[in-house]
């Protein structure tokens, strides 16, 4: 099925472990097929490195279907590459041209320490989630679905916010390494639905407190996160989180 193969110049961040210094290393790969995904191109590069007895490039990946949020790196300063609403695994090599030079770098943020090469530790997101992105539900028999009324617009907005896969591209694309889009989406998806009302106030307060404790930066409303997001999460969610936070801080009863 190979119609066209071409070559690329890759400059990849290599770092053995969190406590070792890293550097950009040049690689040339010749047999790039236009039908490959970006991750498959990296697989081919790694196979070549292994055959040469070198250490392969570590990169995160899992479902390779664009839904798990595991993969991701910067390509020439764009999180997941410059195409909109695309994860690295869904980015095809036909988007590149013969002889292109690509800088591959890990997400850069104090809150995302590098594990190795292009892999970063995103457990800060897990801790933010655990701080409040859940809701109380009754166990036992299922209640009548029609007893919980949800306005259509709220259902749509909540679903859009819930599309977040927690990949971290928003943090990587933000010049301040801010996690506001991620936290805004997680706060919004619950705040918009009846099931999320019980913990509504403490949720936003606790998640923001955890976000700050993790060392993410502050939002300066440049909206690069929205452009980088593979799921098209809107910055409207950040404004909603701001509203939720102000309301909760002013009205939460102890």
């Amino acid at each position, binding site marked *: 099925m190979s119609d066209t193969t071409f070559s690329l110049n890759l*400059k990849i*961040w290599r770092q053995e472990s969190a406590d070792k210094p890293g550097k*950009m290393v040049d690689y040339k790969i010749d047999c790039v097929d236009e039908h490959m995904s970006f991750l498959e191109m990296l697989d081919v590069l790694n196979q070549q490195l292994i055959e040469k007895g070198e250490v392969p490039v570590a990169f995160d990946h899992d479902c390779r279907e664009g839904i798990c949020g595991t993969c991701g790196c*910067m390509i*020439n*300063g*764009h999180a997941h590459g*410059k195409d909109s609403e695309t994860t690295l695994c869904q980015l095809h090599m036909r988007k590149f041209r013969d002889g292109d030079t690509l*800088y591959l*770098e890990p997400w*850069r*943020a*104090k*809150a995302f320490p590098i594990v190795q090469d292009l892999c970063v530790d995103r457990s800060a997101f897990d801790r933010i989630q655990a701080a409040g992105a859940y809701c109380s539900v009754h166990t036992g028999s299922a209640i009548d679905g029609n007893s919980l009324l949800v306005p259509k617009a709220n259902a749509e907005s909540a679903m859009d916010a819930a599309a977040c896969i927690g990949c971290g591209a928003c943090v990587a*694309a933000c*010049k*301040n*390494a*801010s996690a*506001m889009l991620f936290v805004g989406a997680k706060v919004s998806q619950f705040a918009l639905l009846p099931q999320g009302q019980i913990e509504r106030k403490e949720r936003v*307060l606790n998640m*923001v*407190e955890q*976000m*700050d404790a993790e*060392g*993410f*930066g*502050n*939002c*300066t*409303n*440049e*909206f*690069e996160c*929205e*452009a*980088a997001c593979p799921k098209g999460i809107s*910055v*409207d969610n*950040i*404004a*909603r*989180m*701001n*509203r939720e*936070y*102000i309301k909760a*801080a002013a009205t*939460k*009863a*102890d």
Partner: protein
Amino acid sequence: MSDGIGKFLLSSLGKKLIMGLTGLMLVGFLVAHLLGNLSIYGDVDHGTSFIAYANKLHDLGPLLWVMEIGLVALFGVHIWMALKITAENRKARPQGYAHPNTFGKATPASRSMPYTGIAILGFLIMHLIHFRFMKGIAAPGSVELHREVISVMSDPLWGSLYVVLSILIGVHLAHGFKSAFQSIGVNHPRLNGLLGKMGIALAIILALGFASFPIVAMFAWRTSV
């Protein structure tokens, strides 16, 4: 509430709220300041309308002091928050990218907020030395202020600096105005476009308005006074 209000105000979102609110109030001050200054065009030769405006301000007496203290507080809090936010943001990404880039959502205005902010602070100090702490300003009905305004504004060096800084205030507002609304949670599809356009329009009007004084002074008034 067991937690103090300070905890919320100094959280990442609290700081944004403070930045947005103080920023919008400072925009209000700029609009009032420009409208007041326009009185100088009433009578350039003798400055009667400008002096009358200055006297009216002085006539406010203790109220003027309250306004000045309020302004110092607004500027102080806005600048303090800006320095804090900028320092924290630098710390949040200790190592930058070898190949930095944007998706084009960031603008020169948004990228340069800390720099235009610092430039405006420097300008503010210069401006206060020129006209707030100048000798003889306290004398009511004094024509000194009017003469001083014309002489500073028509000076090629000071005048040019005032033009540049007026434009930088516009650049700061081009991002700041709309951004402030997002920070205080005002965001709606019906509003966003309007707020964006209002921000740009306000930035242009204020920049041109403030720049008009030194420009007119340098080219038209220099010989007349």
